[in-house]
């Protein structure tokens, strides 16, 4: 076992071209063996072939499923739903967080309740939501919005409340009015935290979208693909769903971070990719 930190400082570890290639090969050992094992295991029936599809079958199934552009349709449905819930929930969260962060009394009144509600695992709301709003689109969007609400609200709240006292005193010393104080001191100082909240909201809503499609049947959608795959015992369909789920999540995450970096480009890096 090497112990890199105790040797040289980090940026000095760039090796020769040969070393880089060896390192790359070393990195691909595990993924390659897993793929190879999968192919062999399905080829030679080491695993239950009724459940486990071969790599080729997954590919065939993908083409089959997408014959009429079904995958794109499902993806579009899910993303649209995600977007609606996200906009609703993030806006409400920013507003609530702003009020709670701005006014100490609002904070005292609202924050304990907010913290308690946050402690409730979000999917626990599903039975209640379906009883109140039914299992239609409204119910789904409210649930997704709820997923966006907490991180947006809590991070906005924290961001505003942790504006350094010294900066607020500075604003008082120069007699800034409340509007100037907000524009020149509070918002710039809270911005990284607020953006973090929005990013987390974006990522959580995608999870919530697929989850809610799982619980409330939703027609063509990513959650629907996963559910159908599991119900019909077609693992290859499940894999297609997982790949969709993972890649959209990955893209959202990258996008959110790129946006965050752009908005905060004047500052030392607070958001890590």
């Amino acid at each position: 076992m090497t112990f890199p930190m105790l040797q040289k400082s980090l940026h000095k570890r760039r090796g020769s071209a040969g070393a880089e290639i060896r390192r790359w090969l070393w990195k691909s050992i595990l993924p390659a063996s897993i793929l190879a094992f999968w192919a062999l295991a399905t080829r030679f029936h080491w695993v239950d072939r009724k459940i486990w599809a071969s790599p080729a079958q997954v590919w065939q199934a993908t083409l089959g499923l997408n014959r009429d552009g079904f995958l794109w349709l499902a993806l579009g449905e899910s993303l649209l739903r995600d977007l609606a819930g996200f906009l609703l929930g993030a806006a409400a969260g920013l507003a609530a967080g702003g009020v709670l962060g701005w006014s100490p009394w609002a904070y005292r009144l609202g924050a304990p309740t907010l913290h308690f509600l946050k402690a409730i695992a979000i999917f626990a709301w599903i039975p209640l939501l379906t009883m109140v709003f039914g299992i239609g689109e409204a119910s789904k969007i409210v649930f997704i919005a709820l997923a966006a609400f907490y991180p947006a609200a809590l991070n906005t709240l924290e961001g505003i409340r942790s504006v350094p006292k010294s900066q607020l005193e500075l604003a008082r010393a120069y007699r800034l009015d409340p509007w100037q104080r907000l524009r020149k001191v509070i918002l710039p100082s809270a911005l990284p935290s607020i953006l973090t909240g929005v990013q987390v909201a974006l990522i959580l809503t995608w999870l919530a979208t697929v989850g809610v499609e799982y619980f409330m049947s939703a027609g063509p959608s990513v959650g629907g693909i996963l559910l159908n795959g599991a119900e019909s015992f077609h693992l290859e369909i499940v894999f297609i769903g997982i790949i969709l789920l993972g890649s959209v999540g990955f893209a959202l995450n990258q996008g959110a971070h790129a946006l965050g970096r752009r908005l905060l480009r004047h500052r030392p890096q607070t958001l890590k990719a």
Partner: protein
Amino acid sequence: MPWAGGFSAIDRKPLKPEVDIMTTKGILEIRNLGKAFPANGRKGSLQALDGINLSIRPGEFVSIVGGSGCGKSTLLRLISGLDDEFQGEISIGGAPVRGTSLDRGIVFQDLRLLPWLTAEANIALALENSGLSKADKRQAVAEHLKLVGLEKFAQAYPHQLSGGMSQRVAIARGLVNRPGLLLLDEPFGALDALTRSRLQAELERIWREEGITMILVTHDVEEAVFLGDRVIVMEPGPGRIRRELRIPLPRPRRRSDPRFLEIKEDILREFTGPETAEAESLEPAGRPLAEARLDWAA
């Protein structure tokens, strides 16, 4: 003044295992030393040090002065062995310096106390591999806490200490294992004037009694002249030695001695030109007065 009068409590004791003596003795020889950092963003590199030649005898006290950014800290890091990538040679007694050694101590400019260890435990860190018995370690730590006047703060965590107190802990950590060569990077920067001159006197006493070679980086010309057998004046871009001068004054030195003042002014002129030579130091002390006072009250 919680620690007034307590200094002589520290006796000369053989804190170091005998084996280390080998590396202590011998001339520190720096030849044609250069150091380049990869420059931020742009291609090419930043030459932090260039063509440094310096030779320091065992037991010598050398002060290095210069404005910020002229490579003083970089030079100390290279001597300490924390950074092995440089051009030129650094050797002690003919043997090239490779990696760190317990015989070369360093007091970092940014202190680097471990925030999860108490003041006491931070000092004890330097004795982990000293080969001393547990009891001896405890005693050495206690004595050095006393030396820097922090015996009441043995159990305090760094975040509970003021800047000046933290600095004293860092100094104690640098001294406690009695290295043969001690590198001090602006060790008194954050101290109030009284504590500072006390610790300067203490440092001089330890140096005299233990024969430790010391290299002190400072931006305070008076301090450099007060303590150094030699003062090295550095200049930036790239970091080079501009001037080297011997301080022929007998010890203990008096700051009001006219010859002392003359040397000081002479060095200050290197930086400021003749008119403004009254300026005491090259950089502001970097710490508001109020904090210094608090520090003193503690």
